[in-house]
């Protein structure tokens, strides 16, 4: 069986990295907002880092789902034309 190389372009890598960073920033903002709203300690900015990473992964997974949906809709539109 011949293994097939999957090539990820540097543009794609850059795009994914930016998406992950944006997701992390969103999670970070969410944490800041929750600290302000619930009046908890600012030390949670680093003590809750694991939760922030989990939420980052959740957001990233959401972007993947959304992008797959967009891709599917586009394919459907192209197919209909």
């Amino acid at each position, binding site marked *: 069986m011949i293994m097939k190389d999957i090539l990820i372009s540097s543009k794609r890598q850059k795009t994914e990295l930016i998406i992950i960073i944006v997701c992390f920033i969103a999670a970070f903002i*969410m*944490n800041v*907002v*929750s*600290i*302000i*709203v*619930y*009046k*908890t300690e600012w030390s*949670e900015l680093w*003590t*809750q880092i694991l*939760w*922030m990473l989990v*939420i980052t992964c959740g957001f990233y997974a959401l972007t993947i789902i959304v992008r797959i949906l967009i891709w599917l809709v586009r394919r459907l539109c192209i197919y209909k034309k």
Partner: protein
Amino acid sequence: MSEDTNLSRRDFFKELGMMGGGGMMLSAFPWLQSCSADDKAKIVKEKVRIGFIGTGSRGQFHLNNLKSNPMADVVALCDNYPPHLKDASAIFPKAKMYADYRQLLENKDIQAVMIATPLNEHAHMTIEALQAGKHVFCEKSMAMTPQDCFDMYNTFKQSGKVLFIGQQRLYDPKYIRVMEMIHSGLIGTICGIRAYWFRNNDWRRPVPSPELERKINWRLYKATSCGLMTELATHQLQVGNWALKMIPETVTGMGDIVFWKDGREVYDNVSLIYRYSNGVKMSYESIISNKFLGLEEEILGNKGTVEPEKGKYYFEDVKPAPGIMQLINQIEHKVFDNVSFAGPSWVPETASINKGEMIMDHMTAHDGASSVGAAGDGTVELETAFCEAAITGKPAKNLVEEAYYSSVLGLLGLQAMEENRIITFPAEYKIPYLNFA
């Protein structure tokens, strides 16, 4: 069930020294200061010659401890039950044996006596020993009547000798730590105390022949024992007084033989309320046919609660769950609360459950099932303090007063149950201490 990482006596006092105030803190517990550092240095190689009266189960527990105590030299043993005396002589083979305590008291070589006999023997043995010029350690409870307790106290005061009563919680590291926390205001104002001791055993010892029933199982009969109130409650009543720095003024309660209907005369099920002059109540309950709750003295303050037996404290205001978890929890509720198939929350709402904190790193907890004694419960420290006091001749300050009131309160509780009424602490039995000074 014991989590034991035993704290050595030196480590214990070192830990205490590290707590806020150090020496200042120790001054709140005067019995711990009776032997000064100078005294300790002077008596470092001295021993006290002890005559031991009552070599049953608790007696042998003490004797085994004394064997490894460098200040104790047990030179005489006394018991009128030969098998116990034989067991004890195996621990101290060179000790002279007596069947009559009066002969032991006549022995001029003996400086101190330790008494671990049935309750009905405590008062007259202690009084005679003090009058014979001996320092005395007597097991708790002091006696079977308030008058006997009062006579013991007065004889002690007149004798100028050392008297210790076996209230080992006064020397138990975790209790001392707890009291330091309470008296520093950590749990705020004490609003109530719930003390209880639950076991599930019949409290009986095997009897070789029927005529020895009342001798061996003395705890079960009114002629020799006051039952749960003198065997268990006195320890816990003392904790309540210690925490509040007060003596309760009234008591009422109910007692019954509910489960162990085996010919015993003392209650196996008691429930009482002690009321202090500031309105605080200490409830006390003891049942020996269910062990689910074990033993504890829950001391309830407006800012927190302590459980000295478990060695835990709990603040009323629990630290909230992290903000991010609260936010997720709220989002999840908004999304799923109206969805019929949604199960219980996956978000740890219970993160804010009050699990409490340990009061110290190294401590020993026990479940109270043993009626002989438990490792790390302060008994070794108490015995050592007695040896030091007997060598220096300096009584431990306030120790007898603490023991006196817990003994009398136990007896008044029993009277309240037997007479089915509210008992007020009799003025004639008040000795000058705390709010009765």
